[in-house]
């Protein structure tokens, strides 16, 4: 009976060898994934902080707030995105995408947000990717953000722009809000065409709905300021509404 039990606990050696190989593969993959997840978490958290920083903008501190935000963004790129870049190469971009996609989206959101506030334009994917090239060694294939993550990030950007627009109106910067309005509408229209083509578009579909709500919120805010501004045109006898009344008064 003693010998009868033995073989059961001795695994077939070919099988053992085979699975040892797979165990190594999975361990390596899991370790890498874990490192990517950790780097991603840092990217996400710090990108969010950049976005919060930009929102601290007001009529009078624009320069200062934005330059701090840009510095913060640069250190996200140097400290955290660079870790992602180092971990990922070749087929990993797609295989591990689930692990880093939210981070990259958030990073895109932060980077495009900064750029818009600075210049009023959309930071291109090519520009972002070019900046990532600098982070990697020459001999490995460098991480390039894919179109999907970029677009998902841009979709989120519109939510932040909505917050910004409402805030700018409160602060009296109506034309700025109108500029945001136009910009967000353009993005919305472009994404309308791209959304159904995206690989897994359920996520984007949800974001499109949120985006439309953001557009409408901005439009309503612009409408409000416009009709209020128009009310006294006849009284003031001027064709140009006097927006200087709008906005937070100078308490100072």
């Amino acid at each position, binding site marked *: 009976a003693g010998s009868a039990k033995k073989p059961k606990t001795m695994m077939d050696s070919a099988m053992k060898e085979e699975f040892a190989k797979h165990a190594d593969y*999975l361990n390596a993959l899991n370790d890498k994934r874990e490192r990517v997840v950790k780097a991603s978490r840092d990217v996400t958290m710090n990108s969010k902080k950049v976005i919060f920083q930009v929102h601290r903008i007001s009529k009078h501190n624009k320069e200062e707030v934005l330059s701090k935000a840009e510095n913060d963004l640069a250190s996200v790129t140097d400290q955290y995105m660079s870790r992602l870049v180092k971990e990922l190469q070749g087929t990993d*971009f797609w295989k591990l995408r689930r692990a880093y996609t939210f981070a990259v989206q958030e990073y895109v959101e932060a980077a495009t947000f900064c750029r818009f506030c600075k210049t009023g334009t959309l930071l291109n994917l090519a520009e972002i990717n070019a900046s990532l090239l600098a982070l990697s060694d020459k001999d490995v294939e460098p991480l390039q953000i894919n179109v999907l993550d970029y677009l998902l990030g841009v979709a989120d950007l519109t939510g932040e722009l909505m917050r910004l627009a409402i805030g700018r109106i409160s602060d009296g910067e109506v034309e700025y809000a109108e500029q945001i309005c136009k910009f967000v509408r353009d993005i919305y229209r472009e994404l309308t065409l791209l959304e159904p083509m995206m*690989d897994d578009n359920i996520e984007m579909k949800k974001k499109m709905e949120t985006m439309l709500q953001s557009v409408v919120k901005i439009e309503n805010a612009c409408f409000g300021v416009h009709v209020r501004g128009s009310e006294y045109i006849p009284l003031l006898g001027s064709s140009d509404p006097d927006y200087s009344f709008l906005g937070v008064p100078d308490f100072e």
Partner: protein
Amino acid sequence: MEKQFEDFRHQLDESGSVRERIRSVVMEMEAAARLVHSSLLLVHQSLPVLEVLEKTKLQIEVIKGLFGRLAEILRERPDQYYRYHGDWRSETQTVVSLLAFLHWLETGSLLMHTEAEKKLGLDSSEFGLDIEDYLIGLCFMSNELPRYVVNQVTAGDYDCPRKVLKFLTDLHAAFRMLNLRNDFLRKKFDGMKYDLRRVEEVYYDVKIRGLASTESTQDETAQA
């Protein structure tokens, strides 16, 4: 801004058509796998293994051809294997489970990863068989074994439970060497213990009734 989105549109359009092409290959693969499965099911009705193997040969060639077509499509998009991987995963796993079962019926041993790739005409350096898909396929195969054992005993083959139990115990132990994440593979592997338990029960049933003892050949002396 417009220019960039224009570019994206082209890229995504192309990617969409890749997906359509994959979809049509995968639909054929699903049909072929279904036919293999249909033939394989006959082992539960005690059709001789050789006949079953014979019946499935042709469709396995068809499947091999389809993997060739997939590889060809992906050749145009180096490094994007995992972008589209989800589109053929489920069918690949099914195919692996079928091949592994057939292989076990034929040889009594586990179908190795490289053997599976060879049977499907795959080349790891280019369009390989994802290891997790391979492992999930093995789990699916394991799910078939309790039923097989029950039907074999019903048909009078009382030695089958012992053999399957040995194989499944080994396979289960081998899987335990892996550190699995909390994902689909893990869930499938967790299910394997029910297969093992059921086979143990059947072995118990034949053992306690003294049905397994007599026919035990030379292998038995080493075993029992």
